[in-house]
């Protein structure tokens, strides 16, 4: 499982890096960025799904293996 952010849709609401700080960070402008290649460890899977479900812009998605 991997997480991705659509930079065109992201408006910097900051929900992803608040909910799943192991998977997402913010850049200097406050936009969400994926940490590393976005691979989700099994114990982060729930938080990854919550990050997707809470993004107001629908900018976060999951690619299942």
């Amino acid at each position, binding site marked *: 499982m991997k997480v991705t952010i659509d930079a065109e849709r992201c*408006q*910097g609401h900051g929900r992803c890096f608040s909910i799943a700080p192991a998977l997402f960070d913010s850049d200097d402008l*406050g936009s969400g960025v994926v940490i590393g290649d976005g691979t989700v460890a099994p114990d982060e899977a729930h938080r990854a799904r919550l990050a997707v479900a*809470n993004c*107001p*812009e629908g900018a976060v998605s999951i690619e299942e293996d």
Partner: protein
Amino acid sequence: MTHRPVTDFATDFDHTDPAWVADPYPIYEDLRGRCPVAHSDRYGGTWLPVEHRDVAAIANDQEHFTSRSVVVVEGRPTDEAPPAPIGLAPPITSDPPFHQIARRLLLPAFSPRAVGELEGFTRDLCEGLLDSIGDVDHLDASLDYAQHIPVGVIAKMLGFPPGDGEIFRGFVHQILESVDDPFEERVARFAPLEDYFVAQVEDHRANPRDDLTSYLLDVEINGSHLEDRHIFGTMILILAAGIDTTWSAIGASIWHLAQHDDDRRRLAKDPSLLPVAIEEFLRAYAPVTMARLVKEDFSFEGCPMKKDDWVLLSFPAANRDPSFFERADEVVIDREVNRHAAFGLGIHRCIGSNLARMELRVALECFLARFGEFSLADPAAVTWSRGQVRGPRTLPLTVAAS
């Protein structure tokens, strides 16, 4: 100025009507059932979508709607003034492509990292307010506590004298609440505010320091410093958008907790739940309704919108839409899935959202630590602001120290 009473909110709504000010949520619910895009001839023609999908569609539509003016008032700015593309208060009153330029230069000041550096100051401010309140049985959580927090934080960010809070609050009140006064009177009221900004800017030019005002004086767009009207406009924006909004969110959250013992005790016992709980308070009691102007005549979802009609962009209504949220009218403080739109949607997402969240979290944490028990001293004595920012303005509580 008072208006004639509203008879039917579907055809004649007025967001300054006493019924709306007291409790707009039954109005949204009623409209959702029978007229999801309401229209009123008031303010020269205004539309009100109450469903999340319509609010989201309009927030994301820069082709048909302009942000040239975002506060519904009796008059309209002409096509030339406030001057395009900057607008009165950039970037909230700017349209693309200038919008993105003005926004990008402000974003670093409001990033999570920059906001994190203000958390200690904010905590000290909240603790200091609670120390001054002291050991009391009664207090006004809006007037004695909530209102001072964003004023102090914004003054700190801009590098304005901390004692000037009363001055800003007066300006902001005029901008946000006196919305039904004649347009010319509203414009004239900006003059003393500009004088105040000129004095602050001169002081910062003479003595540059590490704050947002010095940053605005220093930053460049394409090799040129910002025009004065851009600097003043951004200061107007930061005062107008950064004070009453957060004051409202803190006040509404305390208003809720004063009436819900289980939620209050749970958060007092486990403050680690606050980050999730404040998202729910922001959803259920979203303070801000934005506005757009229609650019040219066009049909939106079958509604014949005319050039220069207002659209009230009600994020509070979107946040209570039962087709978008389960148990939309309940406050569920551990709600896990909460795609609320309290900070707006699309390119104008509230630039201060990280700051507002930090202030709200710290304000509630400090208040709950100081007062373990509190309730409304007199529910009928609670008053609410009017206009497009909604929150309690008097909030008398009976309190007991932890």
